[in-house]
């Protein structure tokens, strides 16, 4: 007799732990007439808890040195590389062909590596020392924005999520991401990858569920600083933009076009989720030539 396979329970990822949704609800995404599993139908309370976790992780993640963040992100890629086959299987299970699935996994790993490399470089590209007319040293440098809501693309289970999360992380932010509703499996498996790497708990939180339920709360929560919306549903975009006004969340809209293309890779995606801070300090004027004081 064949061995009986152990089936995987997909849970959500909050604060470095894998709880079930507090609501106890589930939904069953399907591909064709195949059921993908019992997936957590996260509630607004799950989202709220995730924001609390993300906020408290802000210091832990942004407080790491940029070089260290870079290594942690590299570590995510390393672990993803080691679990390639699991992701390929899941992608196939969700309807992809083997070669397309492999392509997507490879691109996801490479994207992580790409943004891992930016962690300790982007601020050099976007900073400036400003030659002010007065006797002051003046510089402008990016700082993390804080907690970002991410609505991952619907049509790409893994790469879409990685493409959204990586630049946000590279910028030193923490996030709460809502996985693709129809293809949520890789998102939760990716959470396991994050959990196995050295990402502090709460830095990335991943929920599964329905945009129709959660989008509103993700956009309106007063303790969220930015919103990355991936998709092109005009009504949803409108909703996000209007609700974001309440605390002036920075909203960025990203389509899921050309996800595989290297055109998607650029530090301007990081710049969307940083704040530029300008600092002034006086420069004492006593010169070696004895011009006096």
């Amino acid at each position, binding site marked *: 007799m064949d061995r009986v396979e152990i089936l995987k329970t997909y849970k959500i990822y909050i604060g470095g732990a894998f709880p079930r949704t507090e609501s106890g609800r589930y939904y069953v995404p399907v591909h064709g007439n195949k059921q993908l599993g019992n997936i957590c139908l996260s509630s607004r309370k799950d989202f709220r808890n995730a924001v609390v976790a993300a906020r408290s992780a802000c210091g832990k993640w942004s407080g790491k040195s940029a070089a260290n963040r870079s290594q942690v992100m590299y570590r995510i890629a390393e672990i993803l590389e080691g679990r390639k086959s699991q992701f390929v299987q899941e992608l196939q299970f969700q309807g992809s062909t083997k070669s397309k699935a492999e392509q997507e996994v490879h691109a996801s790993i490479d994207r992580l590596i790409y943004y891992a490399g930016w962690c300790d470089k982007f601020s050099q590209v976007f900073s400036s020392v400003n030659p002010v007319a007065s006797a*002051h040293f003046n510089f402008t440098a990016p700082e993390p924005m804080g907690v970002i809501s991410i609505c991952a693309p619907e049509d790409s289970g893994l790469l879409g999520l990685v493409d959204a999360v990586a630049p946000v992380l590279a910028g030193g932010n923490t996030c709460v991401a809502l996985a693709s509703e129809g293809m949520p499996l890789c998102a939760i498996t990716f959470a396991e990858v994050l959990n196995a790497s050295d990402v502090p708990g709460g830095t990335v939180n991943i929920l599964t569920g329905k945009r129709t339920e959660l989008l509103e709360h993700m956009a309106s929560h007063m303790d969220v600083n930015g919103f990355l919306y991936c998709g092109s549903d005009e009504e949803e975009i409108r909703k996000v933009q209007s609700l974001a006004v309440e605390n002036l969340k920075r909203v960025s809209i990203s389509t899921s076009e050309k996800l595989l293309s290297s055109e998607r890779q650029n530090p301007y995606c990081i710049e969307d989720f940083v704040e530029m801070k300008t600092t002034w300090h006086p420069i004492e004027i006593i010169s070696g030539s004895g011009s006096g004081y």
Partner: protein
Amino acid sequence: MAKSPKLEFDVGWDLSPAPESTDHINLKGQYDLFINGKWTKPSSGKYFKTVNPANEKVLAEIAEANEKDIDKAVQAARKAYVEVWSKMPAAERGKYIYRIARLIQERAREFAVIESMDGGKAIRESRDVDVPLAAGHFFYYAGWADKLEYAFPNRRVHSLGVAGQIIPWNFPLLMAAWKIAPALATGNTVVIKSAETTPLTLYKLAEVIEASGIPPGVVNIVSGAGETGAAIVNHPDVDKIAFTGSTGVGKIIQRAVVGTNKKTTLELGGKAANIIFEDAPLDQAVEGVINGIYFNQGHVCCAGSRLFIQESVSDLVLRKLKDRMESLIVGDPLDKNTDIGAINSKEQLGTINHFIKTGKDEGAEMYQNSCSLPDKGYWCRPTLFTNVSQSSKIVQEEIFGPVLAVQTFRTIDEVISKANNTPYGLSAGVWTDKGSKIFNLTSQMKAGIVWANTYNKFDPTSPFGGYKESGFGREGGLHGLKPYLKI
């Protein structure tokens, strides 16, 4: 020899009046809209009056633009964009902006005097800060026009099109410069609206723009109240909205552009913390507090309106602060010795007085300097409140007047959490002689501008803008280009 240890500032050697002359000022009785390079009557035929807040006299009548006029202005801007401005070689575009900078410098004194007459700000500030900085902004951005490819690595940038710009009443000419200069340098055309109470220098700028020979329609200048602003924001052919003003109005604008492709820059309110540690250069810190809250009558979005003093030096700092306040002169904005001019409008004075009353009702202790105030006009003495807490209204809300709320603190982590405990995030000040503490504090402050051992410094090369509900986008410096470009 021991006397009661109180310094006396109120009797003795007093300064004689030193009013800046208004002889050389060229003001017309009436200003029309400046659309498509022509002075244009408003389609409604309506004009509103602008008043000198120092004597309540009417200075001029200004055309009020309605939806029709805005449409005309946007059409002119679009036409100028498509036919001329977007096709012009960038270096040539830059030369026009340089011309504007030079023309402002040539007429600096006139600009300064009119700014003080229309807005009530002390001539010392309009002469030494507003006007030179405005010219400086045009000069700075003029040079960027043909160098944009160096600002955005690996990107070819494109202008947006027509920029709709709405400026506040606290720094009329300077805010116009902050808006117009980068917009033009990046190849956009402009429709800009002045605030209702301070339109005059924008129309003097229109004269300069006319004299610069810049093609008609590249800059269009209008005036009016909220409805006029709404007409700009809602116009379907505007690609970009840049707004400086209150957080309340900023949110209305942001809601209005939902679902459009309009890019926005919002520079909104603030309630900045100014933090003095016991190891600070205290006398300079006191001077920084004075500049921080009483500059421009406190009508400054980045005003250091919340002062935090480390408890071990709070008595000493307060004493120094009060003595320094005593030497401040409140009065005629045109007098060269005036430190604090007139409150911009009757309405704003009402708002400030309401906050002062609230402060007293909440049990805070008030101190004001003892100078005399003119009979006519809108005035407010420099004011500070002690015995307040984070929950006091005057600590939480932006007053936009010369009113300082003072709290004490004990430890670094306490003051960091209190300083950041606000929905705003425009600016902050930190005073300590210890370098490592400065860098800790400046990075912990959730604010777009942090002044360490200085306050309220501005420069064309220095980006300005907020975190959180103080808005987004930066104005000034290299970072001020991006909001006007597709990259």
